[in-house]
């Protein structure tokens, strides 16, 4: 992927629900190997933004480009087929199932044994462990129930799963919102590692401290409006805070 063509691009996208403007005039780009952070306070339109990108909503106005071509999605499945994977806050995991069972949930590896399709547990265990270690995640015990993992580790399983199953754009919805400082650092590390594997990452957060160190590009939303779109070098922490709180508008 050449650096000039963005993996994913939104041009002046807006979404209206009747007369409610949920999102208006938002543009951003996501490049392979880079992290695009979407920042905003509660009610800024972040969820609508995710839903548009993941194919749950169709934008009312503007263009949605994937690898330079305009696309419209009728369902999230179509977006997923293109490699746009979303890791939601609730993570889509069954807490009482083991890490590897969750990792391969819905796409279980099988091997034929006579007429029967067996679950290839050996492969599943080894692959889950290996894939996670590729992102720098070191699970203690691949057989332990996901419910026994810490919040950060659970995020990491979800991220590794998305990466393994061919995600090209990874949308992370508030991955650090419920985590402590150390756990957040860990998760942000995984996000970076995922981006380093030539994925485009969209990180949605309301925490500028988490966004600033790892983002390459920043989209700041407030009350459904884009209040700024910056490259990393054009932005300081103070400026970011001001923009997010809505006191100042970008020039």
């Amino acid at each position: 992927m050449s650096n000039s063509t963005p993996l994913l691009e939104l041009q002046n996208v807006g979404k209206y629900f009747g007369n409610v403007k949920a999102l208006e005039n938002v543009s951003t780009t996501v490049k392979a190997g880079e992290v695009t952070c979407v920042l905003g306070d509660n009610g800024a339109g972040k969820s609508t933004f995710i839903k548009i990108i993941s194919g749950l909503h169709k934008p009312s106005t503007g263009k949605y480009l994937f690898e330079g071509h305009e696309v419209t999605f009728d369902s999230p499945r179509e977006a997923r087929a293109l490699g746009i994977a979303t890791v939601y806050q609730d993570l889509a995991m069954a807490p009482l199932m083991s890490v590897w069972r969750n990792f391969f949930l819905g796409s279980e590896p099988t091997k034929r044994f006579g007429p029967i399709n067996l679950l290839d547990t050996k492969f599943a265990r080894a692959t889950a462990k290996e894939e996670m270690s590729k992102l720098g995640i070191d699970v203690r015990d691949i057989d332990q129930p996901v419910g026994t993992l810490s919040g950060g580790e659970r995020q990491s399983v979800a991220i590794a799963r998305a990466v393994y199953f061919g995600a090209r754009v990874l949308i992370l919805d508030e991955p650090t919102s419920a985590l402590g400082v150390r756990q957040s650092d860990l998760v942000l590390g995984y996000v970076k590692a995922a981006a380093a594997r030539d994925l485009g990452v969209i990180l949605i957060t309301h925490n500028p401290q988490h966004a600033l160190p790892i983002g390459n590009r920043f989209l700041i939303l407030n009350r459904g409006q884009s209040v700024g779109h910056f490259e990393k070098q054009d932005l300081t922490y103070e400026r970011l805070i001001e923009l997010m709180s809505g006191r100042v508008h970008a020039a």
Partner: protein
Amino acid sequence: MSEFDDVTPLKPSDERITYRGPLKRLLISPEIGALIGAVVVWAFFWGNGDKFGTAGSTANFLDVAAPLGIMAVAVSLLMIGGEFDLSAGVMTGASGVTIALMAKYFTDGGISLWVCIPAAFLLAGCVGWWNGFLVNKTGLPSFIVTLGSFFVIKGANLVFSKRINSLVNVSDVDKAHGYKFFKAVLGGENKFGDTKYRDIIFIIGGIAFGVLLIIGFVEQSLLRLEQTSISTMLVAIVGAVAGIAGVLILHRTDSVSGNVLAGVVGLSGAALAMVSYSRARFQSREPLVGALPETARPLIILGLLGTAVASLAGQLFDRGEESVMLQWFPSWLRLVVAVAAGALPLWFFVRQVKRGDVEFRAKTVALIAVRLPIICLVSLTGIVSLFQLTTVQAVRAVLITVAGTGAATCLYRARSIAGKQSTKWFINLGVLMSACFIVVAFAVRADSSAPRFRGGIFATLLIGAALVLATTFIEANQKKRSLADLNADRLGKRLVLVAMVLGSIALGTRLLFSEGVFRMSVFWWLFFTAVGAFVLTKTKYGNWIFAVGGNKDAARATGVPADKVKTALFMATSLMGAFVGAMILMRLNSVQAQQGDGQEFEYIIAAVVGGNLMTGGYGSVIGASLGALIMAVSKNGIPAAQWNQDGRYIFLGAVLLVAVLVNNYVRRKANEQR
């Protein structure tokens, strides 16, 4: 011993995982509680009456219990998938009525069973699909939806059988075409010649079981030592072989003295194995008692008191039986043991208090305060049974119950004192468990007229005790040891697994083939359990079942066809109901229209007792099967112990309550952050 050669040296797989020994790993699987429960309940009833527990009677009640067991398999799968089916019980009746009515009245002269039985399955499939469809479509709790189906089917059963047959039962289907075949396949007792082959299978299986089990444990535990001690290992194996020899003698002889001899040989062999094991572990360690933590003292006190009670029991209630065990343990010796066991803890306690060990005193008081209600309840139950029955047998039963409860309390106490911080509680648990095993073995052995079957179980219990103890000692040192060697682990696990299978086959042949009769119902029970367990753990569909029960939205989000899985589970349950209905019809040659009415709760109880979570997402098919076994044992054991038949509901309720509490605990453990 080529297996031992290709084992790579120690390599810590991950330094953050403390090594979990075989027993501990076993303990976190869902079915293990049910297994322990089944053994305990079995041992309890078997210690209570000599009618219960012989090979023949066991085979008979397993035969009767098979429908419950088969249904429990399907119901547990459904429960893991997060749903219930209240129409499962009445479905068995519906299937029986359908088949019987069609076979007798369809197109005047009746029709072949080759048509009737598939028709019943078709009907059941439709009912299951409808249940699943409604639950998926409406999102209503399956309790309500299937309750509706339950009433509809119940009514239909009555209406049709009265209308067509003018009776609430339909009988004499044996004239229908194909009856012979279906009876042989579904409900029959097939003669299989003499019992010689059974004995051979039992002996070979038993030997292989013991040897593999010991080698497996050696492999898993001993080989992880820095320096493997071949001599110790050999002694362990010799001990194991001696233990097995004990079992063999038990099998071969009918005489009481022969039994005792075999018991002693078996015990000493097992003990040898155990000691050589622990010697390897404890060579440079403090003695065991010195190593016991402070907090274990109350346990020792309670345990010793329990021993005192157990020893005195025979003294107080002279059974006037010619028991060899009594001869080996003359009355003066029993008295001495009892007094010593009783006085020792007292002395211990007094010394503690005198020393002013405030913490210890406070703990003891707290213990009594907390446990008092439980003790009262148990005593009350004991007294009531005493008055009701006033037989020596009942008294013994009550004593065993009290001792068992005491032991359980001890275990719980050990756990709560030591907390999670150490493996100390685990030592206590293991020691107590093996002690309980031995006490039960001897209590039962001394109280029975010792048919061979009991002798076998006696020896098994002893060997079990030895194994538990040995494992415990090894566990106790886990911190000292560098971490799991995967090769040894894997090989050991396989050996143990193979041993278990062989042991089950050996025991199974004794049960299935008793009196030269092979019981198809028991076979189907085992078959469906195996299939269910296989699907659940070894195929992707099992993964889906866990997922729809554990987190349906997550399952759907990752592409699992959640609705289809649920519908399939409902259909499987109904189809299994149809199968069981056909089975019962073939066996009894008649069907009651109300058959299965209310049974659905027994299925659910069996599943819950077997460690399945009511809320779905966790559980085991084998556990459910064992749960059904527990219920069957109690159903059969209560009359055999000459108790009031109706008392089984009390028992059932208690078992259910205990099982749910244990499940809850296990789930909490599973969800704890490690």
